[in-house]
Structure formats: structure tokens, C-alpha cells
């Protein structure tokens, strides 16, 4: 038995690292991002692993949200945004000429800080994406809606009111609806930008539990300002500061004994 296996027996946690580090899902090589003159990300290179949760931490303006917006090319919508270097999903550079951005966004779902359900029924919120991608069969849509809501741990609460408005749900339910909507098109990667910052502790706990479940089927990348949340739910943590990736590694190490003094100072609240 290896040391890793022994420690996983002791801690009662699954051996998160075995195998996964060989399975790189998202990788960057010298990634730079500019908004006009502003140099937002500076030569960022690292790998994120399939079926793991990677948390991005760092003070406001450090580039962590900008980074995740590169992964589904949402920065394309910002005038003057320019990316150099490589951002690889399954080994393919998503910024290479000829990349089908619509197909990419289907593979990469996103959940935002504030729950933003569409002003339509719960059912239509979930069915919106699949319909956009050409699913018209009612039974198939019913299946997708049910499965997505089950995935997002919302089915039991809303199964009797699928026709009512999504905006009528509580904040925590709305955010789970948005997660269900994001996963309805069965993406491989789920990007979450501070998904619980507008929620109460109980709703936050439900979302965190959901994230742990979701990683079985998705690679999750989450931006959070809550260090304890990153420590609770992520397998790997990346610390950004002023556009640079300062330290990246296993969460258990980053939050107990990071290698970089700046990481240690940040997580203990000496700055930021």
C-alpha cells in the first residue's frame, strides 16, 4: 500500500489524486490576456485535471474571473480583449483559428455570482439550451429537464411546479436552477464565478454539496473569495495575484503549508 492510499484510509477521503493528474482536461501554456493596454493575465501556465474541483483564489482584480472567462471565450465579447499563448481543452487550443466557439460553449457551462434565471418557467429555463442545440422532442426534453434538476438537487423541490416562473424561487433554489440550466446541455466543464456569494449559509452548504457530487461527471473550476469554501470543496487551488499565477497545487497543501510566502500571507489575511 502506498503512502497516499494509507493517508486516504486514515482521512476517510477517496484518493483524489490517483490517476487524475495524468488526465489533464484544461491546460494553459504562457497564457496572456490584455484588455486594451491593461495586462490582465501574465504568462499563466498550468494544468487542471478531469473530474476534479479547482478553486481560484486571490484578491479582487487579480485576474481569476478573467481567467475562467477565457475558458469559454466569454472575453471575446469585451472590446479590446486579446489573448496570446495557448489554452488547451483536451489538448486542443481553443484560441486556434477555426475553433467553433458555439460548440466550445456547449462543452463549457457557466454559473455566475448572482442567480440569473431567465424570466420564464422553470421547465423552459432548463430546456432553453437543449432547444437551442436542436432538441425538439417533448419526451427527450422532459428527460433532460428532469435529469438536470436531479443533478442539481432541485427536482424534489420543484417537480410539482415546473410551469411556474424560475424567478419565483428562493435565492438558493434559483442558483441551483442556474446550475441545472448550465448542465442541461451536458458540458464537460463547469465554470463557477463566486456561485454562493449571494446566498445564505444553508443554501451555500447545499451548493457546496452539489459541487462535490458534480465533479463525478464534470470538471469544475470555481472562483471564490471564501477561503474556507475553497478549502472545503476543491481538490486543487490556484492563487492569483496581479495577473500572475503565484502558486498552484493540492488544496490540502495550499491551505496548510503553502510554498510561497505571498500565498501564506493572503490566506491568513495579511493582505487582500
Amino acid at each position, binding site marked *: 500500500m502506498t503512502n497516499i492510499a494509507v493517508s486516504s484510509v486514515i482521512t476517510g477521503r477517496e484518493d483524489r489524486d490517483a490517476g487524475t493528474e495524468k488526465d489533464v482536461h484544461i491546460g494553459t501554456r504562457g497564457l496572456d490576456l490584455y484588455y486594451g493596454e491593461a495586462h490582465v493575465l501574465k504568462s499563466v501556465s498550468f494544468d487542471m485535471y478531469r473530474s476534479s474541483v479547482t478553486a481560484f483564489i486571490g484578491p479582487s482584480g487579480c485576474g481569476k474571473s478573467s481567467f475562467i472567462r477565457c475558458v469559454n471565450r466569454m472575453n471575446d465579447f469585451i472590446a479590446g480583449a486579446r489573448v496570446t499563448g495557448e489554452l488547451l481543452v483536451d489538448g486542443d487550443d481553443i484560441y486556434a483559428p477555426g475553433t467553433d466557439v458555439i460548440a466550445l460553449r456547449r462543452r463549457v457551462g457557466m454559473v455566475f455570482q448572482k442567480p440569473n434565471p431567465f424570466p420564464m418557467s422553470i421547465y423552459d429555463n432548463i430546456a432553453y439550451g437543449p432547444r437551442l442545440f436542436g432538441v425538439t422532442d417533448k419526451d427527450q426534453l422532459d428527460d433532460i429537464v428532469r435529469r438536470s434538476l436531479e443533478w442539481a438537487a432541485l427536482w424534489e423541490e420543484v417537480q410539482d411546479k415546473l410551469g411556474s416562473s424560475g424567478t419565483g424561487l428562493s435565492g438558493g433554489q434559483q442558483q441551483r436552477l442556474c446550475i441545472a440550466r448550465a448542465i442541461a446541455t451536458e458540458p464537460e466543464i463547469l465554470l463557477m464565478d463566486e456561485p454562493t456569494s449571494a446566498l445564505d449559509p444553508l443554501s451555500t452548504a447545499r451548493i457546496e454539496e452539489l459541487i462535490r457530487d458534480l465533479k463525478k461527471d464534470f470538471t469544475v473550476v470555481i472562483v471564490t473569495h471564501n477561503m*474556507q469554501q475553497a478549502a472545503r470543496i476543491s481538490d486543487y487551488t490556484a492563487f492569483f495575484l496581479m495577473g500572475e499565477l503565484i502558486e498552484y497545487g493540492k488544496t490540502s497543501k495550499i491551505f*496548510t503549508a503553502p510554498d510561497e510566502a505571498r500565498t*501564506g500571507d493572503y490566506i491568513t*489575511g495579511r493582505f487582500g
Partner: protein
Amino acid sequence: MTIDTRKQIEADFNEISRMLLKLGNMSGEALTRSVWALERLDMATAHAVIEGDDPLDDLTEWIEEKCMAFGARHQPLGRDLRAVLSTMHMAVDLERIGDYGVNISRVVLALEGKSFIKPLLDIPRMSEVFSEMLHCTLNAYDTSDPEMAKRVFMMDGEIDALEKQVMRELFTMVLERADRFEQAFLLIGVARALERAGDHLTNIAERVVYICTGKSVRASDFKKRKQ
């Protein structure tokens, strides 16, 4: 996290670390006074050490409670997390040292009115080395000095060697005359208690290195290197 929060973390932990140093001094005093009482067969001092154990236990409990409250209040990470968890363990180590002082004091009471089968030389020397180790350990903790903590590892080797010497000598004496058994048995217990106290200080010194550097070290690795 605001600057005020950081100040509060430091103020709260400072309170805990002051009390840990106090516990260290109290436990160390209990142990060294018990050896002092043994050398002179001073019953009053032995009684005083035994009676002084309760405040020591209370202080240990206080530190544990404060560490728990610190964890709940600040949810510490990084060095703060290492420091508060290590401090909880250190308090237990120090409390055990106090208990050894009580054990040695009981030996003193058992030897009332008797004369020693041999002059006490190595046991007081063990107590001296222990005092040096304690001073070094608490200073290393107070000043966050991992190099000073590592010096404790070497000193522990000296205590171990002295304990072996005491055992050898007492075994030989018992083999020569079986009626020396009872006292020899008690004195071996004293040497063993001092050796264990040294081990607890070594544990604390290891944790000081961990708090300061984030790296776990083992004293035995340093001792081997020295040999």
C-alpha cells in the same frame, strides 16, 4: 479580510501563546522541583509539587478551550492553522511533563527516612539538561526560531544516554544485592520520567519547526545525522 480582523487574530493567538509559555514554565518547575526534593528528600517540596498539579491541569484545559474558540471564531488557515493546532498538542505535552513531576514527588514521599543506595549524580544532571531543553524549546516557540528548536533534538540525545547509564548502574547494584531492588526500581522510574519529559519537549520542538516552516521534521533524523 480586513486589517482589524488580522489584528484580532494576532491578539487572540498572542493570549494563547502567552498562556502556553506560562504552562511550560509551571510544568518545568514542577519537574525540576521534584528532582530538587529528591536530592534532599524534602517532603514539604514534594507535597507542594503534588498539590500544584491542579492549576496546571486547569491551565491546560483553558488553553484547549481557547484554541477551540480561536478555530471556531477565525477558521484559521496556513500558519495560523498550524500554530493553533500545534499549540493544542503542545499543551498536552507540557501537562504530561507536570504529571512526571508529580510521579517523582511520590517517589520522594516513598523514600522518606531512607538513605540512598548511591549518590545521585546522573539524575540531577538529567534535570539540568531538561531545564536547558525547556528554555530552548519555549524560546524557540516564543521567537518562532526553527533553528533554536532543532538544537533541542541534540540535547534529547544526552538525556537518553544519561537514562541508559542510570539503568545500567542500578541494575548492576541490584544484581550485587537484591535488597536494593525497591529503591533501584523507584530511581529507574525517576530516570524514565525525565527521559519521557525530554521526549515531550522534543515533540514540542518538532511542532515549532512545523509552525515556522510548514515542514514536518523528526528529531530522530537529526540525532542520526549527528551520530
